[in-house]
């Protein structure tokens, strides 16, 4: 086993443990903290895939913005002094469905022979990504910025206190 694989298994274990914490924690704030751990570990996976740019974006957007937003929402929607169950009665069926999905997907992925498995990793430079993003993918890029703006305005309109409320 090479050192690369050891690092991968450590990062993957942290990711999975964090994800397990998110879906099983008894406390909603613990869930959010587990989510941060899991997202940062996924950034590590991105680095192992030689996608440093995405790893940085991941840390900035997920590690920073998204988790802060989630914690903020938890703070605003906390029903105090009323501990309720976090899982619904459908939990066993959910476990069954998710387990079946996981099993089938893993089976499909391990039994398929993927081409190019032994090739050396080709590092995609930031310059190439930027070039592609602003030439080939220019229209999707503009649409994405429009979506962001609409979402921003929509979020403000939705969350705003109305007159007489």
């Amino acid at each position, binding site marked *: 086993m090479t050192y690369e*694989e050891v690092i991968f298994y450590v990062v993957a274990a942290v*990711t*999975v443990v964090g*994800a397990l914490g*998110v*879906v099983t924690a008894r406390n*909603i704030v613990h*869930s959010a903290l587990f*989510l941060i751990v*899991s997202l940062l570990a*996924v950034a590590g*996976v*991105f680095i*192992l*895939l030689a*996608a440093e740019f*995405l790893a940085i974006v*991941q840390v900035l*957007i*997920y590690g920073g913005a*998204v988790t802060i*937003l*989630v914690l903020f*929402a*938890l703070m*605003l929607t906390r*029903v105090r002094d009323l501990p309720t169950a*976090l*899982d*619904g009665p*459908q939990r066993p069926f*959910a*476990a069954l*469905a*998710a387990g079946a*999905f*996981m099993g089938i997907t*893993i089976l499909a*992925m*391990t039994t*398929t022979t*993927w081409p*190019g*498995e*032994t*090739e050396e*990793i*080709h590092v*995609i430079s930031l310059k190439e*990504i930027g070039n*592609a993003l602003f030439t080939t993918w220019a229209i999707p890029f503009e649409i*994405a910025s429009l*979506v*962001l703006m*609409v979402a*921003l305005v*929509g*979020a403000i309109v*939705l*969350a705003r206190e109305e007159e007489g409320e």
Partner: protein
Amino acid sequence: MIPIDRFLILSAILFGLGMYGVLARRSAVLILMSVELMLQAVSINFIAFAVYLSPVAFTGIIFAIFVITIAAAEVGLALAIILRLYRNKATANVDEADTMKW
């Protein structure tokens, strides 16, 4: 170099866990967090395929960038909706917001 199926298995496990969270949890915020996990799994899959199978076109990396962008927009909007739900119904649990159910 790590075989590609390690990454795919990791992404399948992550997606399965997120799916379990979406189906089992009651709180809308927790469901949103589980959806984030599923999106992460998708991103890992996209990047792994881009790096291993088509490093010249790297469409998967571009897709992952868009996934992250749309996820950010989605989180902002979803949290605003949850806030509105909480203000109207005094709950953030999806099974208690059942006005349309009969």
